[in-house]
């Protein structure tokens, strides 16, 4: 069981049945997609494992994002995140792994998300099974580009929202139409980036936080 969950953690793209339906019909997402980071975007960033620290997860989603959950214009949602909660500890509790997996499924169901792009690796991970300078880790654009190979979405009409410069760098590298950075004290930190960032740059807009007012603005923008 533990081994099966580890193999799940090694997967970088989790697709929903909706996405598989799109892919099989070879349909493109002409309205583009909204790429959302998790920690620091949908909820406060309290370090690795923030997703597990939220009590009553479904109530949290309902109370904060009910409008988003019901309707997000015509753009589909894709989560794109670096999650190091398992890389940071050398031993894993099965219960933790299961809770995490269930929360991702809850999240994807609530937002009707088509994909969850994730990297659980870290170059200096305590957990040897997750210790890797992974090419899927943001600011790499590989996750976004791999998703594009499943079903072409309109990059020009897509939006990416994150709380770190590494988030918007991945959007710039993948030529996403608009990147939005959430204002916070750590927005330009590059501490654990494993990528060569020399000559890097990114265009982005800034919002104070990812609340419903800003959400409406993003939703109604032409990008």
């Amino acid at each position: 069981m533990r081994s099966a969950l580890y193999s799940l953690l090694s997967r970088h793209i989790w697709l929903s049945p909706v996405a598989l339906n799109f892919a099989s019909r070879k349909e493109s997402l002409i309205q583009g997609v909204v790429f959302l980071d998790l920690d620091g975007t949908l909820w406060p960033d309290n370090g690795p494992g923030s997703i597990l620290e939220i009590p009553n997860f479904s109530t949290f989603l309902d109370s904060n994002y009910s409008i988003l959950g019901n309707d997000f214009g015509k753009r589909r949602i894709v989560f794109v995140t670096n999650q190091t909660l398992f890389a940071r500890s050398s031993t894993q509790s099965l219960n933790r792994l299961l809770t995490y997996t269930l929360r991702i499924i809850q999240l994807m169901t609530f937002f009707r998300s088509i994909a969850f792009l994730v990297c659980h690796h870290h170059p200096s991970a305590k957990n040897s099974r997750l210790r890797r300078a992974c090419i899927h880790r943001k600011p790499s654009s590989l996750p976004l580009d791999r998703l594009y190979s499943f079903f072409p979405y309109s990059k020009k009409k897509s939006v990416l929202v994150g709380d770190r410069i590494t988030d918007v760098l991945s959007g710039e590298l993948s030529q996403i139409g608009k990147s939005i950075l959430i204002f916070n004290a750590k927005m330009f930190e590059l501490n654990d980036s494993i990528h060569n960032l020399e000559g890097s740059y990114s265009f982005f807009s800034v919002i104070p936080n990812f609340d419903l007012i800003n959400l409406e603005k993003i939703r109604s923008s032409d990008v």
Partner: protein
Amino acid sequence: MFDTLLLAAGAGKRMGILSNEVAKPALKVGNETLIGRLSRQVSRLQGLSSLYINCSHRAESIVQALQEQELPVDPIFLWEKEIMGTAWTLSKVAEKSTKDLLVIHGDLFLQYSGLSNFVSKAREQSTVSTIAIHQRELWKARSVVDFNPYSKIVNSIIPRSLARNESNQDSQSQSIWSNSGIYYFCSNNLKTFKSENLRNSLIELAILPLIINNQNLRALTYTGVRYSIETPEDLKFVDNQGFRGVD
């Protein structure tokens, strides 16, 4: 319609410790930052479409300064991991924009009426770009502008160091037409530049000579308050004595 680019990525070395924690354009005159003031003034200009601001050194202070400023337009930031040079920045923004582009150095303290006057005159000619000029002592000039006084067409831009060497007179007292750090580029003048060739280059040395070669750059005297904040003394002067209450 036109877009605006405010250049705010510089390291501000001449400001000494003042720019250690805060980028120079994020320093305050009175209770308003230089970049906040410029953004507010630019936002009032008729015909503004998008506002671009580049940042690198202490980028968070630039973003914070704009967060504190309530603007009618949402600024678009261009973050540079290391300072790429003003010519590179201009060409990157020009790749995004299809409109004319007003470019202003982020360390300038301006009066709105002067800026508004410059922009409205610059927009009168749709195919010729415009550089703002003013009289300044040679030793203080950013770069020296040589232009035909009748047609106003610019013949050349001479870097300050070169102009000093060429001068036989006492450069302390010699007054000269100097680049004001404010440009209005027509969109057709911006189409040919490729950012990959312009890394670590300056607008006045890499972009303007190409436009001058096509006789497409004219000089316009900047009228109104304009003060370039280059040293802590400049900041002190503007803050204490000079221009309190200037809009």
